[in-house]
């Protein structure tokens, strides 16, 4: 088993700061924008982004929710393992809002598709953008592309991207594991 570090803790901080400034550039004071983190791992990135945004723009009211795509997945009864739902908390209406959906790794695009379907149950957003920390290019099975990218990588299907966070007890970093 070999592993390569894609993002270390110093770079992680820079990447998140850059992503926040890209958001501010497009969304100004976030009066019509909501941030939605995807369960389970996307919310860790989303929380970091929201914390940073609040630090940069303390006067803006940054609305933040989380969504669990489990009920909308297309591999129900096919993956062989039980799909366990996790909490969804969207305490506001998405009707007419600009949504920034955040996940940590974009791979086949299927999870994002499920998340999009789930989002629509909360109203018709004006637009949805996608932010990911790692974009595994050329691995897509659905026509889904990110709006904001931390880092794009080329990888094989037998490789695995692991995103680790300080909140999990380690340090902020992303590694690529090959077996």
């Amino acid at each position: 088993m070999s592993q390569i570090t894609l993002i270390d803790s110093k770079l992680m901080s820079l990447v998140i700061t850059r992503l926040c400034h890209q958001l501010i550039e497009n969304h100004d004071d976030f009066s019509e924008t909501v941030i939605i983190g995807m369960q389970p791992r996307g919310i860790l990135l989303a929380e970091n982004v929201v914390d940073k945004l609040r630090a940069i723009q303390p006067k803006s009211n940054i609305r933040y929710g989380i969504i669990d795509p489990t009920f909308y997945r297309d591999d129900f009864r096919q993956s062989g393992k039980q799909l366990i739902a996790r909490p969804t908390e969207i305490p506001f209406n998405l009707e007419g809002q600009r949504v920034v959906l955040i996940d940590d790794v974009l791979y086949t695009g299927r999870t994002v598709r499920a998340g999009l379907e789930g989002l629509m149950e909360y109203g018709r957003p004006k637009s949805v953008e996608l932010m990911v920390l790692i974009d595994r290019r050329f691995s897509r099975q659905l026509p889904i592309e990110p709006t904001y990218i931390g880092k794009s990588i080329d990888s094989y299907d037998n490789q695995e991207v692991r995103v680790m966070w300080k909140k999990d007890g380690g340090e902020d970093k992303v590694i690529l594991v090959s077996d």
Partner: protein
Amino acid sequence: MEKTLSIKHLLGTKDLTLQDVELIFSQADEFKEVLSRPIKKVPSLRDITIANIFFENSTRTRLSFELAQKRLSADIVNFAAASSSVKKGETLVDTVNNILAMKVDMVVMRHASPGAAQFLSQHINAAIVNAGDGTHEHPTQALLDAYSIREKLGTVKGKKVAIVGDITHSRVALSNIHLLKTLGAEVMLCGPTTLIPKHIESLGVKVEHNLRNALEWCDVANMLRIQLERQDVDVRYFPSLREYSLQYGLDKQLLDSLSKKIVIMHPGPINRGVEITSDVADSDQSIILQQVENGVAIRMAVIYLLAQNIETRKGM
């Protein structure tokens, strides 16, 4: 740790492990959130067909199951024994096999005979959910009762639950006893000697014949209905409903005279003025309507989890 249900059918709460119950409750939490949305529906069970087979009358349970299934996007067929070929002499297995031949994946069944669901699960290739089998078990009712206690008091473990009334003829009582013991609650049964089965203490429950003592002891009182329809017509279990009500009925005066505030539950349908009076049923200590509300979420969780264990039909 891989989380999966240890069961393929929900026949009774006796078969459930603590992990199973925790899994069902955690998913019910998520379905409660779904039920609070503007669009109260998820597409998970699009490819599942469920038959609701009710050989006994039911309003609440049947409606609750039906809503749960619809909100999971399952296709459903309903079958009531009164309007069926059962009247023409068809056996249970034949009836259900005929329904299954139409490609049904899951059967929710209520039947007057104890063990009917168990019997069916041995002869039928579909997931079975027991919606009540005679005086035996009614697992989803017990699950929603325990879930409602957990919601109201934070936990079930260590709580004292009194089940009051007709224990002998109650499937709700038996399912509740098994489940509450699994969850670590203390259980006391209260009712006249004639309505409490002999040797029931062997299940690890206390028995009390004085209602006031039971209520003073407990945190939660589950007031059961007198099941006149199940009682043998030749046997008098108590002199009259009026006398039963005087001894074992809960009124506001008794409730207010207790040294602490207890939670009042009832599996419905209520006989107002018999086991509880209207002012108790409608008081702020009663969680009867929350039980009904939680019923849909619990049944969604059970069906959702069981449906995942159904083998996908290959080549379709």
